[in-house]
């Protein structure tokens, strides 16, 4: 069984985010990008499925951009078998991104696509369900736990309040991964360097990206601060509040 994991980078939220001159986009000059954390979980789940013998091949793919090579080599260092860098027109929303991955997945062929359940910037819907729609495949989101059984998968889908529903889905299909069964592994820098010397990235095309989301961002701004929080200076001040509230 062959698994494709589409990867994307998102702004690291540890950084201060600012809006650029257009008032419609982030100022990307000073922000750091990192792998979408849910994509990291999707990759981990794929690697676990391979290690337990349920999958034979894990292919990662990403759109060409800053730091894409490093992200793809890191995925190879973690155990992915093949990494594809997609060049061509650059997608500008989730629908176009999904179209690019759908084009590449058709060329590559696979039984299962594991996508991160969401990302911090998918304004026009989450990648997995849009990708599944373009490919005409079934999709289940918010999955934590995947078991392969022949030509189908048994998955745990998370609901609110800790409730979980078990579903069976015929393959091929798409899953939006909420969490892998274990913490995503770490690839040491030395291993990534070694992989950079010994393996190479495959290339593919983003292809025809289609019309996109059908909507544009009108404006972007940090939410208005409610200013409700009274800022304290010290642990002592905080203890005073706790005394006032009868905690201590």
């Amino acid at each position, binding site marked *: 069984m062959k698994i494709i994991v589409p990867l994307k980078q998102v702004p690291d939220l540890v950084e201060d985010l600012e809006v650029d001159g257009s008032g419609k986009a982030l100022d990307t000059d000073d922000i750091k990008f990192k792998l979408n954390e849910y994509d990291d979980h999707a990759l981990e789940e794929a690697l676990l499925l391979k290690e337990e013998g349920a999958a034979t091949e894990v292919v990662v793919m990403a759109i060409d951009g800053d730091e894409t090579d490093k992200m793809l080599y890191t995925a190879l260092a973690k155990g992915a078998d093949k990494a594809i860098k997609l060049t061509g027109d650059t997608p500008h929303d989730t629908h176009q991104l999904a179209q690019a991955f759908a084009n590449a997945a058709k060329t590559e062929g696979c039984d299962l696509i594991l996508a991160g359940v969401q990302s911090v910037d998918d304004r*026009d819907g989450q990648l997995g369900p849009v990708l599944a729609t373009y490919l005409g495949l079934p999709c289940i989101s918010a999955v934590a736990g995947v078991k392969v059984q022949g030509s189908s998968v048994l998955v745990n889908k998370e609901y609110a309040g800790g409730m979980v529903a078990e579903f069976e889905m015929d393959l091929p299909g798409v899953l939006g991964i909420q969490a892998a069964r274990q913490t995503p592994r770490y690839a040491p820098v030395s291993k990534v360097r070694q992989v950079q010397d010994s393996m190479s990235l495959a290339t593919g095309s983003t292809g025809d990206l289609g019309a996109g989301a059908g909507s544009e961002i009108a404006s972007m701004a940090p939410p208005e601060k409610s200013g409700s929080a009274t800022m304290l200076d010290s642990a002592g001040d905080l203890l005073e509040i706790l005394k006032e509230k009868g905690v201590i």
Partner: protein
Amino acid sequence: MGDILVVTEHLKGDFQDITFEMLGKAKELAGATGGKCLALVFGDMKNKASELGAADAVIAVGTETEYNPESYAAAVKAAVEAKSPSLTLVGSTSMGMDIAAPVATALGLPVVGYCCGISNEGDGFSFVSQQYGGKMNVVTNVSGAAVALVLAGSFPAEAGQTSGSPAVEDLAVSAGNGKVRFKKLIEPQGSDVDITQSEILVAVGRGIGSKDDIELAENLAEALKADVACSRAVVDAGWLPKTRQVGKSGLKVKPKVYIALGISGAPEHLEGMKSASTIIAINTDKNAPIFDVAHYGINADLFEVCEEMLEELE
């Protein structure tokens, strides 16, 4: 302008809060635009249509009652095609995520995610989406029909909680192609502590840094006779069990005092704790969204503050 269609959400025979939050908003929007507020119900939930009195009419589809990503999406698509609503509201939830984008994409409609604000604007609607973990609000204006994913807790549920006897109309939908099959529900595991009952919670987030440092929060909790809770990131890292998780996919808590240590306050987390009576946040990021819901905040290193508190408490 056309009607507003609310895709209801239910679990174990009960409509979920998000259903009433969306109904209240839909009723307001329909009132402003002259359309009707329609509620789409699934399977046997039709029998509880009287709880949906905020809707002008209930559309019932004969799917299985138990949620199924594939058949529910197919039913919603059929309902949108049949009723041509100007706006379809779907919960930004585990279930809604399976439905909104596939239906909108298949019908060529725009879909707007993470909506916390919706207003009518000319011939269409204006949406405010929470992005970048709550650090940016993004406005999308759509003229013409659209589908929106509504964040839980964005609109008051009370506005949609009206009983009544809305007209119920059955809508025939195809059974779908059966590629996804529901197997069973798995109840949450029991725990030594039920954090939904705790009066005081010391909650840790990614900022705690490592599993070993959880001990600091445990020590503080012990000194304050509190229980330890956490954000999703801490559970995913394997530092605390799922039974301690607060938020969208975890538990909703309402303690008297909630102390958030190193929790940035992503919308998914806020959903589970924003109704705590007193929220105290300690975070090194002065722009962390947690400070917008907190009553008290300290913009400092959580380790320093906690250690100082522990020293003084001794």
